[in-house]
């Protein structure tokens, strides 16, 4: 019998009962005492983490696409007449409700044929914004939020998302709201 015992020094831990590794319960593989085996497990866990994370990102993309499609589908509301173009002077503003009676919106005439409309709910905490077409802004009195009147994007204050835009159409001197476009950025 050879006296020189060769063994893998990374694999020298034995269970207290002295049985070989293949006769040990499965949890011993998950909680090894040797640092090298622990490293190996960590690497495998890392790969598992990477695969699951990329799977989650892929699922997230599908989720975003689905919610986007749902939003577009839901925003296909029937057009509603707001007012005649002549009712509103240049630099004037008009409140209306679209698509439902509990959705306050604001229509502004910025130029001769330049109409814009936004939801009146501030994207911070849903206070009613006050249109100020003369300064080209919409002002939220609750927390001094400020939105650009042309694009609805936030300019100052706590709001970070733009106001939902109401899509407009002019037919025969009448202004119609045809849809709502909710934007996140």
């Amino acid at each position, binding site marked *: 019998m050879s006296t020189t015992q060769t063994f893998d*020094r*990374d694999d*020298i*831990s*034995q*269970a*207290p009962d002295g049985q070989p590794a293949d006769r040990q319960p499965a949890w011993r593989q998950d*909680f090894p*005492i*040797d*640092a*090298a085996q*622990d490293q190996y497990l960590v690497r495998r866990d890392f790969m598992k983490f990477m695969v699951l994370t990329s799977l989650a990102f892929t699922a997230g993309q599908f989720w975003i696409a689905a919610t986007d499609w749902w939003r577009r589908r839901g925003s296909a509301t029937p057009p509603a007449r707001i007012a005649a173009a002549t009712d509103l002077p240049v630099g004037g503003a008009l409140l209306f409700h679209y698509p439902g009676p509990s959705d306050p919106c604001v229509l502004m005439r910025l130029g001769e044929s330049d109409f814009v409309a936004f939801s009146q709910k501030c994207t911070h905490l849903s206070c009613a914004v006050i249109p100020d077409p003369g300064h080209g802004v919409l002002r939220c009195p609750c927390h001094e939020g400020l939105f650009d009147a042309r694009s609805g994007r936030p300019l100052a204050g706590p709001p970070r998302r733009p106001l939902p835009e109401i899509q407009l159409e002019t037919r025969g001197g009448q202004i119609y709201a045809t849809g709502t476009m909710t934007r996140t950025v």
Partner: protein
Amino acid sequence: MPKPSDLHFFIDPHRCIGCQSCVQACSECDTHRGQSMIHLEYVDRAESVQTVPVVCMHCHQPTCAEVGPADAIKRTSDGVVQSARKPRCIACGNCAVACPFGVPEVYADRQIMMKCDMCYDRSSVGRKPMCATVCPSQALFFGTFEEIARLRPTSVPVNEFQFGRQTISTEVYMMVPRTAAGRAPVVDVTAALADAPRPRTIPLRLIPADARQPAAAADAADPYADVEV
């Protein structure tokens, strides 16, 4: 980088003089500043002033790692059982209870167990652990088998310990007198617990009364009375 496989830690407890140098040196280390990982224990304080340094023995089947529920204690490939991994240790104290040598200590204030790791930052690059560096009587020695055989011709290194039915082999060696190791190359700790010291007769030599130095009388003249202060 692992500890060189030809270098080993040897404890020679009967050389320990209880000077606490190892404790002081250990507690200066940056990784556990102010706390000593080496314990200097009295063998039997009522009977003797003999001390014994207790470092981690680095068991081949570390019981502390077996009982740890948080998978925090790992042994590296060179046989060194590392201290608890900080992100994993939950300070449950199982290791402190289970260790047959009483090495791990739980630090409740910082919720972690810390123990001797043979100064892994030093020993992994071939340097002596700090305690072995400062020990003036070389009760703690770090070197090769050849060196220890030359330095301690009457002792042999033993790394098998018997605790009841559990036999523990360790990476750290205990120096045992050659005669005792010849009888059994295992330190039977359980049996040693029952060992009572042999009754010894200590003869006291009586000094005859007339040979004693005469004690200074209380009413003797002050020899420094004339000294100007």
